[in-house]
């Protein structure tokens, strides 16, 4: 029997096996259940609102804030620099380009922890790297960053740094969320311009 016939039979056999395989374009989780569970129980997956406030003040470009609330809620207010991927549309493949970026930390937040934790588990299960949750969500952000005030007579350097961090993040949050939608994208450009002037740099 010549090689051509053998090869043909091999191809037909593989074709028959493939025809009976369940075909699904959507990917299931890549991690094994035990691996995902061990990541789930770790406390290293959380960032506090103060840490996120520091990232914003420092204009840290190594993280990406992902707001999983609805588009309507996102329009009312959101943490500056965040992108909106509503949880109800989270499995849409069009978001993969944002969720699966090497070297970028994804920090999920909702109003509380529930939806952000769903999103964290799905993206970690799909083996997208560097996923985190902002603990407490936007409610905690508002309580800690937007509303906290120092009460007392003496302030330690540590407390001073903490409140300065919150104050700056609060200012950015209020300013950017008070702008009309069309101007929000220009906000950071204007801020960069001002910073470069203060630093004595060129435009």
């Amino acid at each position, binding site marked *: *029997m010549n090689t051509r016939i*053998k090869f043909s*039979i*091999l191809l037909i*056999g*593989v074709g028959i*096996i493939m025809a009976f*395989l369940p075909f699904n374009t*959507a*990917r*299931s*989780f890549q*991690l*094994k*259940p*035990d691996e*995902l*569970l061990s990541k*789930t*129980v770790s406390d290293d997956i959380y960032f506090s609102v103060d840490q996120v406030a520091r990232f914003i003040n420092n204009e840290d470009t190594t993280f990406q804030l992902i707001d999983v*609330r609805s588009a309507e*809620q996102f329009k009312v*207010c959101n943490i500056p620099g965040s992108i909106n991927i509503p*949880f*109800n*549309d*989270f*499995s849409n493949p069009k978001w993969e380009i944002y969720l699966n970026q090497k070297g970028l930390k994804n920090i999920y937040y*909702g*109003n*509380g*922890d*529930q*939806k*952000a*934790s*769903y999103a*964290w*588990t*799905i993206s970690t*299960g799909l083996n997208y790297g560097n996923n985190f*949750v902002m603990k407490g969500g*936007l*409610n905690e952000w*508002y*309580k800690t960053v*937007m*509303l906290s005030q120092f009460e007392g007579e003496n302030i330690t350097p540590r407390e001073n740094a903490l409140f300065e961090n919150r104050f700056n993040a609060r200012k950015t949050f*209020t*300013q950017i*969320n*008070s*702008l009309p939608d069309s101007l929000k994208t*220009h*906000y950071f450009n*204007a*801020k960069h*311009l*001002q910073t470069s*002037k203060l630093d004595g740099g060129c435009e």
Partner: protein
Amino acid sequence: MKELKNLQYVFLFLIIIVVLVLVRSFNPNLFRQVPGTAVESAQNNSNSITLAQLESLKTQYLVINLGSGGKFDSIRIKNSINVPIENLLDKKNLTILNESKDEIILYSADVSTTAKAWVILNQLGIKKLFILAPEENSEAFIYIFQPDTTVRLENDSI
């Protein structure tokens, strides 16, 4: 017969492929659902059940307390069993979950723990899986943002 003997390597190769496919298909240590099923089930909190709804349930249900150690829940539900999240995928616990014909309700003091456990079990194909909703809706925004109407984009105001 001689011709079939000539094809033995071809058949051997095909058999290996079939075995690999079967091993993959029936491996219990792999996720088989697609993430869309979890998103769909969790939309609008349709996977949540309140304590009042639970008490009025006429069907049988199995309540699983995911609390452990210092984080052990203060809530006590009658007839609940304690499965610390670390042990959720132990063979014994998975058997209970897979064989349960009743509604399965997960709860813990930390809503994020419950949410993560729910997604894992949902993706493993566990049916009739719910979360015991916290008393207060944790996903409602409880503050009102007040825009500052004096904000301008001019550099001097920033």
